[in-house]
């Protein structure tokens, strides 16, 4: 099998690698670039723990080949903080206790960041739909939703939001 030489930008830094075509992007990030903030959860594109941004779009990096990312701009959780200053979403997850075991958190934050790029002030239903491809094994969604509300300026840090019972997610779009 031939290897392919790829060049990509990861968190603003140009990186190169020689990769087998079958190498998954998440393995390139974790095992070659040693950026282990991106997690592998289910490895079947269900759980979203491996969510990163590829050219500004959120993607599950376990479902993308490294060669497909040749030339791409990649952003991972390591690219979110500005030195010692946490990204507003990281701070909000901290303030709202938006994590329990923390395994899903990097993917949650990357998906939430993409969501807020699309929609500055999503309502609760939009937040829940927006993170529907990210699973929290601790089922700590209430505080994750609050953290995203805080990061989007819809909730003060430390202010407790009215907690509504999670709506059943409609299987089909509303008519």
């Amino acid at each position: 099998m031939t290897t392919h030489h790829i060049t990509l930008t990861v968190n603003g830094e140009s990186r190169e690698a020689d990769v087998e075509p079958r190498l998954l992007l998440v393995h390139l990030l974790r095992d070659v670039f040693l950026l282990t903030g991106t997690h592998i959860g289910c490895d079947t594109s269900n759980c979203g723990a491996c969510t990163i941004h590829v050219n500004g779009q959120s993607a599950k990096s376990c479902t993308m080949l490294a060669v497909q990312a040749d030339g791409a701009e990649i952003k991972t959780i390591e690219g979110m903080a500005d030195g010692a200053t946490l990204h507003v979403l990281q701070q909000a997850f901290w303030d709202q206790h938006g994590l329990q075991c923390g395994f899903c958190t990097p993917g949650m934050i990357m998906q939430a960041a993409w969501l807020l790029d699309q929609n500055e002030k999503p309502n609760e239903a939009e937040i829940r739909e927006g993170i529907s491809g990210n699973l929290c094994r601790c089922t700590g969604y209430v505080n994750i939703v609050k953290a995203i509300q805080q990061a989007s300026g819809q909730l003060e840090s430390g202010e407790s939001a009215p907690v509504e019972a999670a709506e059943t997610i409609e299987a089909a779009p509303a008519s």
Partner: protein
Amino acid sequence: MIPAQFDYVRPADLDEALKILTEREGEAKLLAGGYSLIPLLKLRLAQPALLVDLRDVTGLDGIVQTDDELRVGARATHRQIHEHPDVVARYPLLHDVSGGIGDPQVRNWGTIGGSCAHADPSSDWPAALLAVNARIVCRGTGGERVIAARDFFIDTFQTAIEPTEVLTEIRFGRPGRGMGTAYRKLERRAGDFATVGVAAGVILAADGGIEHAGVGVTGVADTPFAATDAEAVLKDQRPSEDLFRQAGEAAAGQSRPATDSHGPADYKRAMVAEITVRALRAATDRALA
């Protein structure tokens, strides 16, 4: 999970892609978004010798409204389709389907052409294509073929595409006056494949009767299918809950669900009937709106 080894090429244009497919006939698989193919590669259910990545092939992701049809490029993502102004304005069926596939990440990368070429028996797009009998354009070195959706989905993961062809475009007829369409599905968990999905299209005549009905069903047979028995029940009748119920029973009768983790077969047949009623109700409401 690590896929088996394969070679990888990224042709610059469609002609080059077609040349590679011809030279490596039967060994090559096309790669678009990858959200259907890569999971299969990881499970080693698919082990092609060569992946042909269509990433750099231009002209495959446009969405164009002509006088009489919407031409959707094969590499248009679900999200692009969902947000396209012509889709939002005139194609509620496409809007329904594209907004409910998988989850946001899947919709960012998954494509309509990839999904249709892959032909998973539970995928959403085929039901819609069957309901309105969309036309699927396949390009080979010898030129283009336009295949009706009802001749396209042959069996599980099997379509009418030749191994030397590329699916380039899907064409949907422009809805005329009196036409309403909708897609409704039942999924066990958020983002899951449909347990049952039903796409319905109705055209109401001036007297209020159903001039034409199309019903496409997914998730409950070896391949998505057109519920022709349900369509026959609906034809030339006045829309009513009773009629929709009869059509639902007819669609259920045509389904061949398997008992699996989504539920037993008899439950799924009951759900085919119910989801068919909901899709017909929504399509008729839109036709009247």
